[in-house]
């Protein structure tokens, strides 16, 4: 009971931080934009964590699920006249169904076989998007900025007498969804579903003999996880106001997994750290070395994994142990 109270208090603190953050960076439009993107990645990584951290299935297709969500939003806005915010749940639903569909064949694959098969999907998606250009706009993509379906038409939104600039509006929209989904994911993972998934991850046979249906829960995890990614992609598309195959590049799937592991497997809040890592690392490396930013980027990931294989969440565990003198 005490931990529940603590967790609710932490969640309330997170809400306050999210609400106040733009006030701290009010003048810095770029920072606002980045925090919006971090929010989208946050959602995707929380979803990926449900799949990888809890059910133990590795997916390198989550960039593709983000693309499914983003394109659903764009197509609904451009071709069917739906307002952007209403497309978000639909995008989640479409990506979720795609996830369930992929979850079924994934049942037969394990470990790295699954990783490579899903990576194949991530890699194939851009050429498929280009092939079916009557729907997706091909390499040009779909432009959403200033469209009548865009809330505020790119000029910002008035809520309760306050005017929010477009950056702030995107930020609040993304993080409201982010916190809601985080809470939903947390509730799901601390209940029956989460326990079943952990049991399956640790031993499928033992879980099955305890009455847990491994196939059902594994496919469910794929669906839920993909739905999160779909919402993330939808918010990302709303954020940048256009989609094309490069909006969701192939390495995105790799970066999401990097973010997940850097944050820490099995710990949902750590997704925020992972999301910030994948947004800020490319910016930071430009400052460190303009000649070879990519070398620094790769080296940072390698070093991080060598020094902290359990991620940011693991660091916290170590610190907690040190402070309670367990290791001394």
């Amino acid at each position, binding site marked *: 009971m005490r931990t529940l109270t603590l967790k609710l208090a932490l969640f309330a603190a997170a809400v306050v931080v999210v609400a106040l953050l733009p006030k701290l960076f009010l003048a810095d439009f770029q920072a606002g934009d980045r925090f919006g993107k971090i929010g989208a990645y946050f959602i995707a990584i929380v979803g990926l964590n449900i799949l*990888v951290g809890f059910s133990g299935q*590795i997916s390198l297709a989550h960039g593709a699920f983000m693309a499914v969500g983003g394109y659903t939003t764009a197509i609904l806005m451009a071709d069917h006249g739906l307002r952007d915010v209403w497309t978000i749940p639909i995008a989640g639903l479409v990506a979720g169904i795609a996830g369930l569909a992929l979850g079924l*064949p994934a049942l*037969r*694959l*394990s*470990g*790295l*076989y699954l*990783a*490579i*098969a899903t*990576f*194949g*999907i991530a*890699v*194939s998606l851009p*050429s*498929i998007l*280009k*092939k079916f250009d009557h729907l997706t706009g091909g390499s040009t993509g779909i432009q959403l900025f200033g469209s009548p379906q865009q809330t505020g038409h790119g000029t910002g939104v008035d809520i309760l007498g306050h005017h929010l600039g477009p950056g702030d509006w995107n930020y609040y929209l993304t993080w409201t969804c982010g916190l809601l989904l985080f809470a939903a994911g947390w509730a799901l993972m601390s209940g029956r579903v989460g326990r079943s998934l952990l049991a399956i991850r640790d031993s499928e*046979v*033992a879980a099955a003999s305890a009455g847990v249906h491994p196939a059902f829960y594994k496919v469910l995890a794929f669906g839920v996880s993909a739905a999160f990614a779909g919402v993330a992609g939808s918010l990302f598309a709303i954020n940048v106001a256009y989609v094309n195959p490069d909006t969701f590049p192939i390495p995105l799937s*790799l970066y999401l*997994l*990097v973010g997940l*592991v*850097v944050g820490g*497997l099995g710990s949902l809040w750590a997704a925020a750290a992972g999301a910030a890592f994948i947004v800020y690392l490319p910016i930071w490396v430009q400052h460190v070395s303009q*000649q*070879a*930013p*990519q*070398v*620094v*980027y*790769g*080296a*940072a*990931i*390698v070093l*991080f*994994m*060598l020094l902290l*294989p359990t991620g940011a969440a693991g660091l916290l565990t170590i610190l907690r142990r040190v402070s309670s003198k367990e290791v001394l």
Partner: protein
Amino acid sequence: MSQFLQQVVSGLASGGIYGSLALALVLIYRSTGVVNFAQGEMATFSTYVAWTLMDHGLGFWPAFVATLAIAFAGGVAIERTIIRPVENAPVLVVVILTIGLLILINGATTWIWGGAAKQFHGPFSTRPISIGGVAFSIQDFGVIGVSVVAVALLALFFRFTKVGLALRAAALNPGSSRLVGIRVGWMLALGWGLAAVLGAIAGTMAAPSLFLDPNMMQTVLLYAFAAAVLGGLESPIGAVVAGLALGVMLNLLGTYWDFVGGQLRLPAALAVLLGVLLLRPQGLFGRMTVRRV
């Protein structure tokens, strides 16, 4: 008919390249239990080394041999410094490490040699020869030949040398191997070195037809992934056979099925991969693992 034969031969040539790289992946998977995402970038880097040596006046074959030696040393060094510390870490950590390596090596290649594509002169003439009235490219035959020789030499090495035997033992059962005096750690490093050599062969064979640029091997790596998984990640023969089959099949699909064309080759490879995995999750040549409770 003549078009068909041409496509089969050029498919075998690209298949040989996919197969070599797939074999490199399998070698590492068998010794360290991970899939090396940086395999393609290591190959590209080695190919640039070969280009530099040739640029300094070396002929192709001396440069080729020197490159293989350098690649071997590089592979061993990577295993010793980066992979060894995480030997007992979860697979995912090692996968992320190799993704970091991919980005690092790609960045280093771009930094050292620049992003522009370079012309890479292979050892084989690009002149066509006519066999039975059908025009083939000499280069295709050369590439097939080199791949076949490399794979055969490797097979002989594993089958008939003491080090090869030790390598197989270390991959199969590290604990017992240690007990009979095999230095398992060094065997793993050796596996990485050999994989880097295979990658260097694939890179130098691919470069004359693909042009040398820092991202040259990325698509090839994807086909190699597909081939390795198709063959069953732990089967060396499977990787080579699947690589060749994939090369031929994609060439034929691209030529004779307009819908696939050049654009949908990658998704087509994926569809084949998924189809096979659904029927045989352990790949075509893989063994089914029996789980004990």
